């Protein structure tokens, strides 16, 4: 088997297994999960085997959709992580099939999502990337459905938001294709080169950002988080989707376009907004799943800002943050899945002290926590330092300041979570099944060791991020002003939490006064009621507009048509009917008049 043909395996094998599993393993999901595990392993083995040759294929298909796939060092690095997520998600699923309402659908969707992840990362063609991406979206839709009937609304929302943003991005890609005259992923079009280029950038950025969960396309994530099986959420929205989104944003901002100040401003605006729109509600949130979901969104803001600073450090930081976040967030979700299985819910009140009774899951969660608040030497530390460094070097001081505030709040949120989980008390011991413990533990270790791993791959990261020489990650370890800032972040975060905690009966009640504060309180309440949800607003607007169009344009066609007919009937019937009254003399008069008219016509010109 040639290295080229090996490239197809990660895409085709999971797909094939998925199609096979759906109809035939409805009754035995564990066996199906084993099969899925096999597919994941096969896919991993295939790209791992092929990696040394750096193979590439380029098969002309339909115009624009060239089947161009290649495996470079950087992609191998990325795929290594992707493989890890997939493997552990599958392992966890194996242990958690009983918790899932529709396990067969879950397996199917996971495998399709895996195949599409490989497609997106392996391809060199923008349009094939989009196709893979949309396939991922469909998989996500089905995956949310695996949560059962109550998950349907969230699935709907996810697909609508995803589809909308993808349509916008497609339009952007078309414009891009016009601007760059068919240039591919590495065209490097200046956003300053004209309005079309700028709008192409904005549209593509929106699409890619939406995939990563950027404001204002993020609102489906908390909804989905509440109803999805933990394994599913950990695998797709929390990890793989972020990977794909940021991966593509990276390509957009670093390779496809050369950003000007306006484009950067757009990036910062959306990035900062993403951070604060989610981290503040996370403070007062009382449901662990929602907290995790909200804190899965705010890092995207960091990453977007990192990509926006146009410094090699920022870009590298964004990519590393993406990977670390994926690792720790999926860990947390795996662990949370275990917790809530025992506690019977994910409300913070229920989970008080649960980690004490589930030591392994708790340990995994704690490892992830270390990465989440960016303590050294985790990958999170490395990533956040790089982004801040980029912002500092790029001279974006305001952005830097706001990011720091965001980071402080982030620490505060997680401090609260940890305090809740390890609160005194708690029931007896009872750990989750082995597979369900293995996955978070392994993932947690990866999250913590991230910094170490990334430093090893420094040369690659630096090259990809555009630095002229290696050593990008190494610089972080030197003491600098940013070190001070980092220490400040931890300190401020814990202090804020401590202040909020004092005087409250339980850790879950921390920050509760925020919800009743004069301005912020009502705003948060409205946010909770989805008053600011872009989806809800959009749906309402679309609904109103289309209703008006339907009633006053579409239905009017028939009304007017019928009206014309009945008016015609109303006018003509008495007129013509009355003239035909059956009277002989009347008819004779008609004939006489006709004769006179004919006479007149014939003689009219002669006279």
């Amino acid at each position: 088997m040639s290295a080229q043909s090996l490239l197809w395996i990660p895409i085709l094998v999971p797909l094939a297994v998925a199609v096979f599993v759906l109809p035939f393993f409805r009754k035995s999901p564990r066996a199906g999960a084993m099969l899925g595990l096999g597919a994941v392993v096969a896919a991993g083995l295939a790209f791992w085997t092929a990696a040394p040759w750096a193979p590439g294929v380029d098969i002309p298909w339909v115009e624009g959709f060239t089947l161009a796939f290649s495996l470079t060092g950087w992609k191998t690095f990325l795929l290594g992580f992707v493989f890890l997520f997939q493997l552990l998600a599958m392992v966890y699923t194996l242990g958690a099939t009983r918790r899932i309402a529709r396990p067969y659908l879950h397996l199917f969707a996971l495998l399709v999502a895996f195949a599409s992840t490989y497609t997106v990362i392996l391809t060199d063609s923008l349009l094939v990337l989009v196709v893979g991406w949309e396939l991922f979206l469909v998989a996500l839709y089905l995956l949310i459905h695996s949560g059962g009937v109550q998950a349907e609304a969230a699935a709907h929302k996810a697909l609508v938001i995803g589809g909308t943003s993808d349509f916008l991005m497609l339009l952007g890609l078309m414009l891009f294709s016009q601007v760059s005259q068919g240039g591919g992923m590495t065209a490097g079009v200046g956003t300053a080169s004209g309005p079309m280029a700028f709008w192409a950038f904005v549209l593509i950025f929106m699409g890619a950002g939406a995939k990563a969960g950027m404001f204002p396309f993020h609102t489906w994530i908390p909804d989905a988080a509440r109803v999805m099986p933990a394994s599913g959420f950990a695998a797709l929205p929390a990890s793989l989707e972020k990977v794909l989104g940021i991966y593509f944003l990276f390509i957009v901002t670093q390779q496809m376009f050369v950003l000007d100040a306006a484009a950067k401003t757009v990036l910062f605006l959306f990035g900062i907004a993403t951070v604060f729109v989610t981290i503040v509600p996370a403070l007062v949130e009382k449901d662990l799943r929602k907290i995790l979901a909200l804190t899965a969104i705010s890092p995207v803001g960091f990453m977007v800002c990192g990509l926006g600073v146009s410094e090699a450090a920022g870009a590298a930081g964004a990519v590393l943050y993406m990977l670390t976040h994926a690792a720790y967030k999926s860990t947390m979700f795996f662990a949370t899945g275990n917790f809530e299985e025992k506690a019977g819910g994910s409300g913070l009140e229920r989970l008080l002290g649960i980690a004490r009774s589930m030591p392994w899951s708790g340990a995994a969660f704690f490892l992830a926590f270390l990465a989440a608040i960016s303590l050294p030497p985790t990958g999170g530390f490395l990533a956040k330092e790089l982004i801040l460094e980029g912002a500092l070097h790029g001279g974006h001081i305001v952005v830097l300041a706001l990011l720091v505030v965001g980071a402080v709040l982030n620490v505060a949120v997680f401090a609260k979570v940890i305090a809740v989980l390890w609160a005194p008390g708690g029931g007896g011991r009872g750990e989750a099944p082995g597979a369900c413990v293995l996955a978070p533990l392994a993932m947690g270790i990866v999250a913590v060791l991230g910094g170490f791993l990334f430093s090893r791959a420094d040369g690659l990261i630096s090259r990809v991020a555009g630095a002229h020489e290696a050593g990008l990650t190494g610089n972080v370890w030197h003491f600098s002003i940013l070190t001070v800032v980092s220490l400040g972040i931890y300190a401020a975060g814990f202090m804020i939490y401590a202040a909020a905690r004092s005087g409250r009966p339980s850790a879950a009640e921390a920050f509760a006064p925020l919800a009743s504060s004069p301005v912020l309180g009502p705003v948060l309440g409205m946010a909770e009621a989805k008053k600011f949800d872009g989806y809800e607003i959009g749906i309402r607007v679309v609904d109103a507009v289309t209703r008006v169009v339907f009633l006053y344009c579409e239905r009017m066609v028939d009304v007017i048509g019928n009206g014309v007919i009945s008016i015609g009937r109303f006018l003509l019937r008495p007129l013509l009917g009355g003239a035909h009254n059956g009277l002989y003399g009347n008819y004779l008069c008609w004939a006489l008049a006709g004769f006179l008219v004919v006479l007149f016509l014939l003689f009219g010109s002669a006279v």
Partner: protein
Amino acid sequence: MLLWVLLGLLVLLTVGACVFRDLLYVAVSLALVSAVLAGILFHYGANIAGVFELSVCAGLITVLFVSTVGMTKDSDQGDETRMGRGFIPLVLLVFIGLDVLILRWLGSALPSIVPGAGSGSFQNVFWNLRSADILGQVVLILAGVFGISALFRLKVKEKKHE
């Protein structure tokens, strides 16, 4: 002399047509009226006119017949003919007026009536020039016969019902 006889016959038959109650007699007398009229025309040498008179009148008589039969039925008609009766004289008046106007205009417009084309003896005109019309007249009479008999089925029908 012949002329006087013919004129006398004409008057007699016309009166007869008005007097007879039986429609068949009316028909016969009217047919004879037209035949006599044709004879008078031939007498004056207007052969073509005579032939036409024969043809047209045979048709018109039948027309009259059918209408008579029709009229005998519609005694109980509603307002339809009542109003119609009011109209007919009016229309007729207009027609007559038009007729007068047209004839007066014709008198001045016609320099001379084309002469000669229709000349010849009655036999010649009747059998040679207008032979197609004979066929027509024969069938016309047939039509009249069948028409009347068809419309008089009515009585047969009604009798059967009784």
